């Protein structure tokens, strides 16, 4: 274990030397150091994994997150469950990315290559400093406990195995395009080369971030037992913020690459995304904002703040010293209603959405600072915060407009204002949108906001389909295979609107109910008849569970029997609810065993109906497929 400490510390020393790789002459030396750094981090990671697997409780981290009874998969996932381990994991991802880039760029201009690798190695070294000096995963206890504390039962869910790594892949991934952006500025190259070079990475990053966020929502849905998937919690927002700007970046980059426009936007958005990743980690790890998710308070905050400030300033200096490269020479022919104009508006929408979410998330800090300053002038007030209704309220207009543009922008043309042909093409969409709103209204769903949302969503969906149909008619079906980037992008948009349907339906029209009955009795829920059976006890690997079977019948026909349960983990006093979910395309039935008592002979069951919820996951899947499709196209064209 001591060896691991030394390798860990040793690896962090390499960053100083690794920085030399900025210099042309040191390119090769930098390369060797990078390999050494990667080897050291890999060894450290392996040792940590080994310690986790063999339950070496002398190491504090192992004792903190695992115990003897923990299933093997969760022992391994403890690598990224805790603070120290997850930072090491982040560093590991970064150096692995660096190696990939080193191989990929082996024939590139050495200054360009060095700059890319320089950025990545500085970032990874930052995380190494943290893991070596602030929160060392290998710190030893003064004694060897018999058993570890064990993992929090909420984390004992398959979500733990795949949600954090996908999110970290997304977080870490932004570093690579950023490296390319800086490299292009360092080499004084204002062309779209860097965007092209890093496009694969940007999409890769975005896909993993998307999957990570959605998986997080899905995990919350199945584990937290309140029937929802998104609560605008600071931790959730922290992952959403870089996603929003990242999405805007992808759009901007497209215009940069194809039209040589929005260059400064593209650079700024990329940097913002990178900083927001760090900021998100800072928010959740420093304890500055109260969140139910938060990790314990720690001294990490200051390091993150310094890192964010230094890197922002450095980036701003580099950008401004090269700003001439990015001034648009053909500024005059820019129309808001051309396709790039719409992308420009979309940038603003994404940025605005990011700002309102960011301000909401950091409101306690902002109001505290405000009153601290104003206190000098005698203005006194209390710290303010906001909750779910705020976020729903301020984000809805942005979502409406973003959905609208998601459908309209692909119809507009580059460099031209929209004209008659545009209006003609969107007619089917408008008709479909109106039809969907009328149907909804007639069926009794009369709330204005979901009506508008459904309208714009349908407009987008129908418009995209029209777009594809017209194109296939004009150019034959083969066009879908040859222009993969374009159709992949459209597919992503289709995924987005499908997700939007799921979100609209499940957030505005979910039904909650709860009943306390004696075993054997039944209750009605909408069209369903629920019969509750006897309580049953079951023994799991490290827990004992109690469940109540519930048989669901619809119009006299038996549909399914589900078993919501409560688990008692050996090391914990509390009982943990494990929900039972019955998913169908038209909606989910969600069961929670809320309360029970054997002596008093009652069982309390909560039921939630979430209409169209499955479409959220399906939409996300389509988005990812679409995104990957665009990348395959790129390779083929190149």
């Amino acid at each position, binding site marked *: 274990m001591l060896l691991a400490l030394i390798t860990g510390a040793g690896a962090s020393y390499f960053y100083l030397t690794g920085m030399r790789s900025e210099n042309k002459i040191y390119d090769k030396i930098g390369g060797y150091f990078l390999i050494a750094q990667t080897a050291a981090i890999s060894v450290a990671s392996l040792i940590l994994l080994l310690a986790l697997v063999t339950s070496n409780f002398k190491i504090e981290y192992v004792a903190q997150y695992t115990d003897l009874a923990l299933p093997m998969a969760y022992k391994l996932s403890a690598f990224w469950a805790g603070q120290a381990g997850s930072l090491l994991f982040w560093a590991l991802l970064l150096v692995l990315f660096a190696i990939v880039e080193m191989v990929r760029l082996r024939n590139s201009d050495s200054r360009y290559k060095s700059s890319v690798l320089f950025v990545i190695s500085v970032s990874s070294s930052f995380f190494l400093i943290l893991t070596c000096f602030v929160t060392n995963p290998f710190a030893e*206890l003064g004694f060897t406990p018999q058993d570890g*504390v064990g993992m929090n039962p909420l984390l004992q869910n398959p979500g733990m195995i795949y949600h954090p790594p996908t999110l970290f892949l997304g977080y870490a991934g932004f570093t690579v395009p950023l490296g390319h952006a800086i490299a292009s500025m360092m080499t004084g190259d204002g062309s779209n080369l860097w965007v092209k070079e890093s496009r694969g990475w940007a999409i890769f990053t975005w896909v993993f971030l998307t999957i990570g966020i959605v998986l997080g929502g899905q995990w919350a849905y199945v584990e937290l037992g309140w029937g929802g998937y998104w609560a605008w919690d600071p931790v959730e927002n922290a992952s959403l913020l870089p996603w929003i700007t990242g999405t805007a970046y992808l759009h901007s980059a497209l215009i940069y690459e194809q039209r040589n426009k929005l260059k400064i936007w593209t650079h700024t958005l990329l940097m913002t995304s990178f900083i927001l990743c760090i900021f998100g980690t800072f928010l959740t790890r420093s304890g500055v904002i109260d969140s139910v998710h938060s990790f314990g308070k720690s001294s990490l905050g200051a390091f993150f703040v310094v890192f964010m400030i230094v890197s922002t300033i450095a980036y701003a200096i580099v950008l401004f010293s090269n700003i001439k490269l990015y001034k648009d020479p053909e500024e005059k022919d820019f129309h808001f209603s051309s396709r790039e104009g719409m992308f420009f508006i979309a940038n603003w929408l994404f940025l605005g959405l990011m700002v309102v979410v960011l301000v909401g998330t950091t409101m306690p800090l902002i109001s505290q600072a405000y009153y601290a300053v104003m206190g000098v002038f005698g203005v006194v007030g209390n710290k303010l915060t906001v909750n779910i209704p705020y976020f729903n309220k301020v984000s809805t207009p942005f979502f409406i407009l973003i959905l609208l543009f998601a459908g309209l922008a692909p119809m507009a043309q580059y460099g031209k204002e929209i004209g008659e042909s545009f209006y003609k093409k969107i007619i089917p969409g408008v008709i479909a949108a109106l039809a969907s709103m009328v149907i909804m209204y007639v069926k009794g769903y009369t709330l204005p906001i979901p009506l508008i949302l459904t309208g714009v969503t349908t407009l987008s969906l129908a418009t995209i389909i029209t777009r594809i149909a017209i194109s296939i008619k004009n150019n034959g079906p083969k066009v879908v295979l040859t222009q993969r980037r374009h159709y992949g992008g459209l597919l992503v948009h289709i995924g987005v609107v499908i997700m939007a349907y799921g979100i609209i339906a499940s957030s505005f029209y979910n039904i909650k109910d709860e009943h306390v009955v004696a075993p054997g009795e039944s209750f009605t829920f909408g069209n369903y008849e629920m019969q509750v059976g006897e309580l049953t006890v079951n023994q799991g690997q490290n827990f004992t569970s109690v469940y109540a079977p519930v048989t669901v019948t619809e119009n006299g026909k038996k549909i399914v029997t589900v078993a919501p349960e409560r688990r008692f983990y050996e090391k914990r006093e509390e009982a943990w609810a494990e929900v039972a979910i019955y998913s169908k395309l038209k909606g989910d039935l969600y069961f929670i065993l809320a309360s029970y008592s054997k002596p008093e002979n*009652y069982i309390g069951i909560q039921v939630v109906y979430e209409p169209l919820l499955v479409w959220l996951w399906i939409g996300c899947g389509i988005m990812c497929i679409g995104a990957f499709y665009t990348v395959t196209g790129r390779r083929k064209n190149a």
Partner: protein
Amino acid sequence: MNKNKKFLVATAVVVIAISFMLFSGFKSEGVYYLTVGEVLHNPEKLNQKGMRVSGEVIAGTITKNTKERHLVFDIVDVEEGGAVMTVDYKGIIPDTFKEEIHVIIEGNYDIENKKFIAKTLLTKCPSKYEVDPEEEAAKG
């Protein structure tokens, strides 16, 4: 209209729209973020908005009715001064709720009955994700 003007107008519209939304959002949905002591100091004024308060559940003060989902308990301000207040909560009782746990509640203060009517109850165990094994070992 030349391009610079166009941009200026667009930017102004966006900035105004965003700030308008922020302010109206805070006005209607903002809640005070307080310690127990602050709530007791001037509940009348604070009741105009919602309040979010954090504190620690005092051992031995919990009255729990699982069937009715009703909880009454006292919380204490851990950091500042140690003010104590009674909380009345009806709703889903979180799995982790127990004595000496850190909770975040949201609602308003009932001045007449001298208790806080909580609409939401979140538990925030300092040991939620991070447990200090040395402390644990000392206990066990």
